[in-house]
């Protein structure tokens, strides 16, 4: 058991070291959502003050509305970046080295997912701290409750990233996939607009948003940030995390990308 713990600590340490060494990664992880919050949302500040929706007890500014979506955006970018590094590791052979460990492959992959999720947390809290400046000030209990929610959503997104990376042969192909995954996932969710607004835009858009796993992640974070447990979102995100983790571990192939091309 201690041996397993050591393996997990080793993988986590490596993820954190990599994160610390890439200072620009932390900076861009903060700047990206802050640009959305301070520049984009400022223009729409008063737009959303027309309807009350749970978990909010009163009218809110657009900045308050999109903050949980931007937290989820941090988790999404972090997960995709980790998936990218997985492809890189596979190409460079360091993944092979990791897999020489006697620990089961599934344990190694899940440890990597958890480590990736942990790396996202300082980024989330850094963002929430700066967001206070534009009056995104959830209750104190929310800062605590959002932690497990973020971990779970980060695991789900990490598993999706890992699954995608299993189908990528080369690092060069990944950039395209990022565009086809990150942007649709983010825009076609409740991160920027509530689902009832999407319903106004059209039933197709609404249906896509309603089937987007990211939507449930955003909503889970939104409710927990305001100290409320959204059971339906929790069940869906947990279920999706299990399914994607299972699929990702089953489809992982360390040889991919290194096979000779025909």
């Amino acid at each position, binding site marked *: 058991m201690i041996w397993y713990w050591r393996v997990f600590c080793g993988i986590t340490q490596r993820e954190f070291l990599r994160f610390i060494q890439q200072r620009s990664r932390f900076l861009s992880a903060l700047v990206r959502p802050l640009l959305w919050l301070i520049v984009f949302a*400022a223009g729409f500040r*008063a737009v959303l003050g*027309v309807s009350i929706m749970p978990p909010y007890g*009163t*009218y*809110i500014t657009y900045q308050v509305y999109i903050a949980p979506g931007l937290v989820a955006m941090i988790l999404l970018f972090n997960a995709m970046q980790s998936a990218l590094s997985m492809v890189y590791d596979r190409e460079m052979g360091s993944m092979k080295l990791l897999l020489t460990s006697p620990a089961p492959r599934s344990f190694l992959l899940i440890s990597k997912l958890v480590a990736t999720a942990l790396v996202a947390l300082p980024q989330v809290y850094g963002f929430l701290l700066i967001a206070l400046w534009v009056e995104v000030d959830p209750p104190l209990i929310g800062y605590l409750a959002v932690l497990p929610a973020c971990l779970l959503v980060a695991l789900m997104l990490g598993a999706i990233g890992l699954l995608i990376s299993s189908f990528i042969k080369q690092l060069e192909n990944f950039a395209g996939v990022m565009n086809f995954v990150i942007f649709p996932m983010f825009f076609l969710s409740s991160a920027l607009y509530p689902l009832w607004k999407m319903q106004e835009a059209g039933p197709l858009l609404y249906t896509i948003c309603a089937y987007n796993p990211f939507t449930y992640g955003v909503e889970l974070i939104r409710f927990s940030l305001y100290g409320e447990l959204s059971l339906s979102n929790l069940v869906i995100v947990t279920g999706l995390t299990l399914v994607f983790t299972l699929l990702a571990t089953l489809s992982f192939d360390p040889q991919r990308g290194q096979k000779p091309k025909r």
Partner: protein
Amino acid sequence: MFKRTALSLIFSTGLALSQFATADIAYISNEKDNSLSLIDLNTLELKETIKVGQRPRGIIFSKDYSKLYICASDDDTVQVLDVKTNQIIANLPSGEDPEQFALAPDDRHLFIANEDDALVTIVDTQTKLVVAQIDVGVEPEGMAVSPNGKIAVNTSETTSMLHWIDTQTNELYDNTLVDQRPRHVEFNKSGNLLWASSEIGGSVVVIDTESREIKHKLKFEIRGIHPDRIQPVGVKLTQDGRYAFVALGPANHVAVVDAKTFEVIKYLMVGRRVWHMGFSTDESKLVTTNGISGDVSIIDVNKLKVVKTIRVGRYPWGVAVLPAAYKP
């Protein structure tokens, strides 16, 4: 036997405690629903809805909180609600279309603005008779009586004036020109200053009561909201002289003003078209009526934060708060 006695003791103590554990109740007049919504200010939940006369707007409690006076504008009367039974027990002659009114410190005389008749009607609530009618400007609206009861001030929307009435002689003795469409007036605790809001002018002036000269003029500016939509209506001042709250109508915000420096500290987002406001007894909460969105917002006065918005009837207009101690 002992067990039964102990149980009944616990039960009766619990019952007694629950009776003491009462809360302030905010009475909200719903202009288009002909009703009052009663909100528990502890739980912040709608408790009850009472049917009253047509188009209720201004509402005010008698000093002992046994009666609630209601301007039933479309019934051309001021109704008297028995707070214990929630029944209308009398109709006072008010002149046509009463909108806002003020109760004199003598707890007896109501000063009523008659919007359609360009009149201020003074009614004796005991004899139920009109004491006097005073000609004022066109479309009188806001009404206030000074804390010492010597001065009554009325605003006339179209004339853009404040009319000063001597309550001893019931005669108009001065007028003050303010910005377009003055809607509401409010004396500070000592009565030496009068705050008056101008809806179209988008300003609030603070006037020295003695000289009737404008001392300060406040303007409002909210990021992302066109200046035309900033239309001040209701004004409320804290008793400690710390804050003034100004309801900014279709700007959907309440401005928090430092009542000493006259600087705007903050803007708080509330529902659509915020009209009037009322404090809880300890002034820790401020209730705002949001006309178009049909709800009321509750502001935490200490944190200067909107904590909840509660749906009430259609077009909520006036607020009056019944203290917990007077709960029937």
